[in-house]
């Protein structure tokens, strides 16, 4: 099993401004990747989805991309 990226790097709070990290968890269409694929823990995935949605709202990452 792959270890959760956020617990491995001791990230307690995922910031929406950290777009370089958020982009690791998006596919080329800018959709969020499933936990099954990334191995992120359930707790971190909830934080991650919140952060991604915030970053989208602020125009830091796209809603959709081709």
């Amino acid at each position, binding site marked *: 099993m792959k270890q959760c990226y956020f617990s491995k790097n001791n990230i307690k*709070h995922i910031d929406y401004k950290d777009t*370089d990290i958020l982009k690791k968890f998006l596919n080329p269409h800018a959709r969020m990747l499933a936990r099954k694929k990334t191995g992120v823990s359930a707790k971190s995935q909830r934080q991650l989805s919140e952060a991604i949605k915030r970053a989208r709202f602020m*125009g*830091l990452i796209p809603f959709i991309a081709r």
Partner: protein
Amino acid sequence: MQNKENTVNETEIYEVGYHIMPSVPEEKLPLEVSAIESAIVSKNGGVMIASEAPSKIELAYTMAKKVGATRHKCDEAYFGWFKFEMSPANINALKAFLDAQDNVLRFLLIKTVRENTIVGDKLLAAEKEALAPKEEAKVEKAVVTEAELDKTIDELVKA
């Protein structure tokens, strides 16, 4: 229990991220920033924790801001943020202030934690470093094997 929590948690940590309209000239940016800062600190009794001055960024998609009857479309904006501590009683007043600003394209007001939460640059740099030495090691190995090959070839030729 609840009373205790209320007395301990009189203030909350908030963060406001904002986009300033690209139509604002760069030399007038500090005015906009100080207007927001004074709304946080002097008008609503907030205590500043951290901040980043706005810098021009390309937006991921076109945003529009309605001022009066006109819709201003923006592909870029000045993005900055403030992290501060404030009583929850005053946060609505701050939101109303930001809503009323014509030069603020968009803002995001969130609850957060006091600690620094931005780790991206450090982490990604560390990841790159972790990858780099491996490549060097590979190159060294290759050199050794080539030298060995030459030796063996020389030996073969002599024989």
